[in-house]
Every structure is written in structure tokens, then in C-alpha cells.
């Protein structure tokens, strides 16, 4: 008694599950998503810079926002920053989005692609789109 059929079926199922990402992506090409920096405000900045270096912001922006919210709400530290020549509040809505008004092509592209769903937008929303 070898149960060869069952073993092969089991192996096929297992390999099918393991290689799922490979064949489900078959024929596709990986496109690296790039957040767009093309907004009117950014285009007019005298110096293209953010509150922190770009590399830092890439990985730590959520921490920055988290720290801001405690500083602003809890500690009343609302000192403003000059970034790229314009004044920025420590605020998602009134700070970040001032330059990055393109939420869909700046924030969402990466978040969607990485399966991240921040709940910031439950309360904070974007100027031109009103409620999300």
C-alpha cells in the first residue's frame, strides 16, 4: 500500500500553496510604487525639503506624526517649523498636507501597496476632498 495518489495530490496542493505568489504573479512585472511630489506647493518651494531628511521620513513618518500629536494635544507644544521656506504646523492636516496635498498619489500608493491602513484619516481629512 503506497497511497501514491494521495501523497502526490498532497504534494501538489502543498506546492500549489507555497508557490502561490509566483504563479499568481506570473507574467506581471513588479512596478515600484513612487509617491508623487508633484503638487503646486512643493513645486514652488524654494528648497525641496521636508521636516526631516527624506530617508528618515520614509521609514519614520508615522513616529513623527505620533510624537507630534502628543506634543500638540497633550503638551501644547505647537511651535511651527520653517520647511522649504514656508511655515508648517505640527499637524497632519495643517502641516503635512499643506505640501502633500495629493493624498491619493502620495500617501495611499505606498499604504495600499504595503497593505497598511492607518486610521489617521478617520478624523483628519483633506482639504479638496472634504470627508474621506
Amino acid at each position, binding site marked *: *500500500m503506497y497511497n501514491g495518489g494521495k501523497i502526490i495530490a*498532497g504534494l501538489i496542493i502543498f506546492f500549489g500553496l507555497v508557490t502561490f505568489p509566483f504563479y499568481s504573479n506570473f507574467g506581471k512585472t513588479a512596478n515600484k510604487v513612487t509617491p508623487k511630489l508633484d503638487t503646486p506647493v512643493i513645486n514652488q518651494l524654494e528648497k525641496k525639503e521636508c521636516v526631516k531628511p527624506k530617508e528618515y521620513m520614509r521609514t519614520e513618518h508615522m513616529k513623527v506624526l505620533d510624537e507630534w500629536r502628543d506634543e500638540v494635544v497633550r503638551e501644547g507644544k505647537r511651535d511651527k517649523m520653517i520647511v522649504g521656506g514656508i511655515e508648517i504646523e505640527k499637524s497632519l492636516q495643517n502641516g503635512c498636507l499643506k505640501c502633500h496635498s495629493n493624498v491619493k498619489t502620495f500617501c495611499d500608493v505606498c499604504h495600499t501597496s504595503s497593505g497598511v491602513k492607518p486610521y489617521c484619516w478617520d478624523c483628519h481629512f483633506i482639504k479638496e476632498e472634504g470627508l474621506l
Partner: protein
Amino acid sequence: MGIFFSFSMIIALVVIAFAGVQLANMQFIFGVVIPYAAIATFLIGVGFRVYKWGRSPVPFRIPTTCGQQKSLPWIKHSRFENPDSTFDVVVRMALEVFLFRTLFRNLKAETREGRVAYGSDKWLWLAGLALHVTFFVVLLRHLRFFMEPVPFFVNLTDSLDGFMQVGTPHLLITGVVLLLAAVYLFFRRISIPQVRYISLPADYFPLFLIMSIAISGILMRYFTKVDLVRIKALTMGLVTIGPVETDGIGAIFFVHIFLISILLAYFPFSKLMHMGGVFLSPTRNMANNSRIKRHINPWNYPVKVHTYEEYEEEFRDKMKSVGLPLEKE
């Protein structure tokens, strides 16, 4: 002894990956070449190992019966502990594979007042189940790096896993449970003398490996952040077998993926193959119906026997003396 050996192995692996990336700039080796090699080793190895098992037949029907056999109709048959049909076997196997039925039964022997007493001991079951379930969920969650767009069930798993809004980004509970379960199993291994005694380097190594994978993952998510977008580009490049870019990704990621590669490559050659083995275990995956249906042994060969004729030949006189019927007078 085994602990030290295994631990140094892990440290060495971490150092290799770290140095390879930081000093030798071998991002491509660690991010692309080794993962591909590991996946290939994993698939071929597992296939070969299972093939090797499958090549040996199951000559006899030897299920371990853990409950009442199917007998007279008025006797309650314990279907899933002593299955007699394929369906019952499937249920028994499902209970085993998904709920670790057997470990749930675990006992601990104790003696006091001059007699042995048995108490239930479910910690191994709990930790084992926690480790495996969370490992599965963690794997499922990681599909977000290998699928574009991210499928809904991956997003759903992620949001359920991060239901408790702790920290930024949200703490994913399975990662922590996975690590805790592995740590528990390690401490169990060294604190119970019997288990420590039987433990080989091959027992510590996978535990350390899983722990270090979990730790590197947790570090990456919460502490020494990495650029997810670039990582996703890399991982998508891997699964689409397209060009892969490895720039701008922190070394910790390469440590993480290197350790996973090691795990994958190590898998088919180790006790981790219990994953496949549990399905093939003849004492669990067979119905106890050999009195109903004949089980065929493919290598059943004729053997030398002592026939009745030979027997009668030898004892004819004695049989005759007590009046036993004979074939030949």
C-alpha cells in the same frame, strides 16, 4: 552543549548576513540569490523527502486505536479515536493537524503518597498550538509583500492581528505570541531534565532560528525601521522573476531574509519535516478496518511453514492414541 553550538550557529548566520551587506555590499547575494536558492532547496528537498517516504510502502494496517472499535451496533463506536472509514480518518487527521488532538491528551506522571498519580499537562499543547497557528498567520500576513494588489484576506488578517491599537505602527499580536511560544518551548527544553537530556543541537537550532527570525521582524517593524516600499519592490521582483533592486534597504532586512532562507533550506533535512510526516504517519492516517477489508502488502512473500501434513506425520501415533481424527490412517 547543543545549546551553545546552535546559538553560535545563529550568531554566525546573523553576522554573515550583516557583514555581507554592510561590509561587502552583497545585497544581491543575500536578497536575491540566496532566497531563490533556499526556495528551490525547500521545494526540491520537501518533494524528495516525501518521495522517499512514499517509496516505502505501508505493508500493514497499524493504526493506534485510542477508543472503542466499531463492533456490535449497540456498542458506542468512538469514531474519531478509532476510525473505520475514510471520513472518520479525515476527521481524526484534521483534529490532529489543526488542533493537536494528541498533545491535548498529554499527561504528567507524579508520585506522592507512594503511588503514581496522573494530571493533565496542556502547556506543551498550548505553546505548540500557539507557535504553529501564529506562524501560519504571520506567513499569511507576509503575503502582502508578495501580492499586488494585496488580497482582501491578507488585509483582513492584518487588521484583526493589529486590532489592539498599541503603538505605531500597531502591534501585531501574532508576532509577539510566536516569539513567546518559541521562548517557552526553549525554556521547557532546558528546564525539564528529561527533555534537556534528549535534546540535540537539531532541536535548539530551529528554535533559535525561529526566535531570531521573529526578533529581526519585530525589530524591523517597530524599532530599526526599513523602507517598506523598497522591500516590496524587492519581494515583488522576486516573485515575478523580474529585475530586482536591492538599494536603500537596511541591513536588518537582509538578516531577516537570510535567516528565513536558512530556515527554508534547512527544513527538508531536519525534524521540521514533521509537517509533512504527520500526514503520512501510519498509526494515525489509517482506518482500523483490517478485519473488514483485506489490507494488501505489496511485498508479501511466501514463507516456509510447518504444514498440517508434517505435523500429523510427526504426531500420528500420539494423535491416534487419544482418538483424534487423522487425514491419513
